[in-house]
């Protein structure tokens, strides 16, 4: 049982790290601000979800009321991040449009 949980935790953490890595690399590699937001806004959110899920599972190893509540609290973080992160992304994009930043398009490059 413990091995199962542990391996699950490892999987969660590693996949979270992969998502985070994708986000970070995306921020560097993408050509313009709008496309940078795609990895930054979403892969990071997913990364948070994966890592926190892993940690919450790890906490559940000692089964008690306190640890269940603790895991719930961690999932609460995920919930709020899911609520707020897309909104933040949306508001940044909106700011960019209002500020008059033209999006990068393929034709411009060639």
């Amino acid at each position: 049982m413990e091995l199962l949980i542990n391996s699950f935790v490892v999987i969660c953490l590693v996949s979270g790290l992969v998502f985070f890595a994708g986000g970070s690399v995306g921020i560097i590699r993408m050509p313009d601000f709008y496309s940078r937001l795609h990895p930054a806004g979403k892969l990071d959110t997913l990364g948070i979800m994966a890592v926190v899920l892993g940690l919450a599972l790890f906490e559940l190893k000692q089964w008690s009321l306190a640890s269940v509540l603790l895991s719930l609290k961690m999932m609460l973080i995920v919930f709020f991040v899911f609520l707020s992160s897309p909104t933040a992304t949306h508001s940044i994009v909106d700011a960019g449009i209002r500020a008059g930043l033209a999006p990068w398009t393929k034709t411009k490059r060639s």
Partner: protein
Amino acid sequence: MKFFGFLIVSLCGGLLLYASSEFPDWGDPDSPASRHLSPHYIEESLAETGVPNLVTSVLADYRSFDTMFETAVIFCAGLACLLLLRKYKPETDRYYRHIPTGVILHFKNSRKSLPVGSEFELMDADWVPYDLVIKTVCRILIPFIQLYALYVVAHGDFSPGGGFQGGVIFGSSLILLAISYNLRTAVQRIKERVLGFLCVLGVLIYAGLGVLCMFLGGEFLDYSRLAAILPADPVHVRALGMLGVEIGVGIAVMAVMAAIYVNIASAGRHDEGL
């Protein structure tokens, strides 16, 4: 100037570096700092005050006098912002929007005002339409943030946090209200007078608790004297006293943070802002 600044900076830096060679190693458990006062705080404070969070017990009990003035500093900052920025004269330039048609009326240099209600809406000079998504999400988040802030204030004894942090979070929820709707709505909802009173009330709770202890025959802020009027033993009553103090700090900090934000964002006019 650059050279001069560099000279001063390198002089100070050199002096500090020279002295740091005498320091005990970083994290050394036998350094004087962790041998002289802190063992007493760590080992006795749970028995003496009944609060597991040592930082809270030192902050709000052993050194509560410092903390009172810390609150006073925050209070000062609020007063200072009020004193410096607040302008009571309303602008004579006003913009109204006719809600059904979206026509914008601009009143220049006139004291005339339109009835604001379902037909006309007072608006900022650099008004932007509401963003539906941001507004709705903030509307949902704000009560949760506020409850969380109150939770932080109430659980200062057991987990990190306490009056100051909770107050700041509560204040930033009010700031969020002002950002997501607009400043005018937030100011109408939370009146300036109320904020002013809350500032005073918070500090007054703190100081008043201390004075109450003096009336009960102890020194200033000696919470154990509160046992005379509260149904608890002298150790537990210290924890209760700390809770009361934290609530006072929280109220004051919340009000001051909101007031500073409103004053800075609207440059003292309390009508339009970020």
